[in-house]
């Protein structure tokens, strides 16, 4: 078996992917059978610091995303 980290945050089930909002409504509950196996670990996604985002994106992008009504 390979060890697998599963990264999830409860906010993803409330408003996951902006098209429909609740596509992950059944998670993490439906992962319960997997999580009974030692190879699988459920971990909470931490918030990414802005400095990581700015390694890739232009500084104008963060305020633009924050101002988007979606």
């Amino acid at each position: 078996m390979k060890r697998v980290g599963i990264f999830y945050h409860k906010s993803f089930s409330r408003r996951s992917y902006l098209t429909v909002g609740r596509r992950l409504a059944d998670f993490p509950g439906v992962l319960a059978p997997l999580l009974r196996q030692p190879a699988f670990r459920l971990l909470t996604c931490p918030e990414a610091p802005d400095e990581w985002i700015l390694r890739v994106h232009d500084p104008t992008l963060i305020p633009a995303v924050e101002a988007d009504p979606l």
Partner: protein
Amino acid sequence: MAAAEGIADGAFERAFAFIGAGGHHAGRDYFGGYCCYNDVVIAMAHLRATRGIRRFAILDTDAHHGDGTRDLTEGDPAVLHVCICGGSYTSPDGTKVDVPLPAGLLGGAGDPDALYLKIAEGAFAERARGFRPDLTVWYFGFDGHRGDYGDMGLSVRCFLGLADLACRVADEASGGRLLTVLGGGSRTDLATALIPPIIERMGEA
């Protein structure tokens, strides 16, 4: 980013990253298509800056072109980006590839799952093996499933086959290290049917 760090640090060989918004349509100074920040490219930049990991092979099987990822990796020879999106392009150095899909994949004669898997295998497997990435990344969108917004006539069988392909390529090319990042797809029933067995496959040796 935390998922990529965990693989790099040896906490696990593989990781599945759920998302709150998409990533592959976010470029250097633009975003859209329900993507905000380019999670995959940020993770790669973070690993380069903090772990010295340099080479990445990305298989993008979201139904739509990963234009933001391409924008951010164009000219970077240490990133192989293969996008199964219907475009037709190969960069001069062979590391950026858009793969055409046959007209009529949706509703055409034959088996869309088998056809898509054959195309993905042919476009990615050999290139990745030759590229020798430190980490294989599968950008997994399920919007191409029948009845979702990028409908290509695909079924669960195709996505499980793609998971097997990504795992096999990771074993052969990057020491088993595989990061799967969720992309597009909108239906709750599909997410529930697809994601657990995909993660289970990632755990199989």
